[in-house]
């Protein structure tokens, strides 16, 4: 491991333990490649076939609408088996994993996610037959203009 990477990774770990919540809003980008490798087991990851709807500018990182559409015939032989969401700037980058199958009929998920600041959101789709595709989307997360009671609490 290079020195720089080491500093980044330990910094992220220490940050989680020691920093107050407000400071974590500025927490560094984490390397999510190990998380992706955990899913793929090292198999190749292709691009294309995934549509991600996220606002270009999210006005509150507590609740950002997200819609994922993965192209697939969704048959027992050829379907999407799981959809993973990663947010590299979140203190815990694994946001969610959804398991689906041929009985889903359509590989489409809508949800709302927390984004700790402006960052790249990654969607990884796992297909039957150990195939993978990935899509990354940039989201700008803005913060509130007025000082708020909620900030005093954190």
């Amino acid at each position, binding site marked *: 491991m290079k020195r720089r990477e080491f500093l980044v990774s330990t910094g992220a770990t220490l940050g989680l333990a020691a920093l107050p919540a407000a400071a974590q809003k500025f927490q560094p980008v984490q390397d999510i490649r190990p998380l992706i490798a955990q899913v793929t087991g090292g198999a190749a990851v292709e691009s294309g076939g995934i549509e991600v709807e996220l*606002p270009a*500018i999210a*006005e*509150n990182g*507590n*609740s950002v*609408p997200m819609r994922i559409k993965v192209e697939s015939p969704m048959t027992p032989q050829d379907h999407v088996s799981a959809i993973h969401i990663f947010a590299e700037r979140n203190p815990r980058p694994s946001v969610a994993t959804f398991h689906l199958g041929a009985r889903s009929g359509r590989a489409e998920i809508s949800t709302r996610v927390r984004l700790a600041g402006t960052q790249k959101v990654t969607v990884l789709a796992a297909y039957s037959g150990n195939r993978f595709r990935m899509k990354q989307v940039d989201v700008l997360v*803005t*913060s*509130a*203009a*007025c*000082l*708020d*009671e*909620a900030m*005093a609490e954190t």
Partner: protein
Amino acid sequence: MIAVLFFAASAMAGVEFQSADVRALQADDFANPGMLWVTKGERAWREPVATGAACQSCHGEASKSMKGVAAAYPKFDATIGRVVNLDERIEACRRVNQKAPALPAESEERLVLSAFVAHQSRGLPIQVSIDGLAKATFDRGAALYFTRAGQLNLACTHCHDRAWGKTLLNETISQGQPEGWPAYRLEWQSLASLQRRLRACFYGVRAEQPPFGDPDLVALELYLAHRAKGLPMSVPGVRR
């Protein structure tokens, strides 16, 4: 006063100042997170409490008996002897008629009932009385609305009459209308009362926050309701 009349005539719902996403979320009766509280409130309305009968056993179907009720609050209440908001009125009913123990302000048990009752007035115009026994409270609310406060030395009017529609960082300043409250606020990740929102504004201008239930907060609520006259209720609203 001229400014007040002008803005009352062109009252715009709070949701108009939100992003497209928040507007869509409020309009979606299933996904609007505030509906979780309304659903719970409906259950609370129908179920008897440990110490007494259910709300429903006296008031019947809320969709009939509570229709339009919230749109007339805050209101002078003869049995309590002062102007109260809807939440305080429900709490008084719980204590006196259901003999139930008092619930803390902003507790979920109180929020679900006021949200459920206020939801029954959705689409109906706000119409409060500011005459007679409500007049003194209204005057107090109006005075507060125009009084500078806090380290930023701002009155409500400076933002919500003179600057609404302008941009503050990434936000559009609203008119400060109350029609969507109790509302679900993304920042708080919860449903919250109008009093909590007002207290946050006090915090925003770095002023001392009045405690929940403070007569000044009720007075401000009455002033805001009068200022919003005719604006359709939309509880539960969704805000950023």
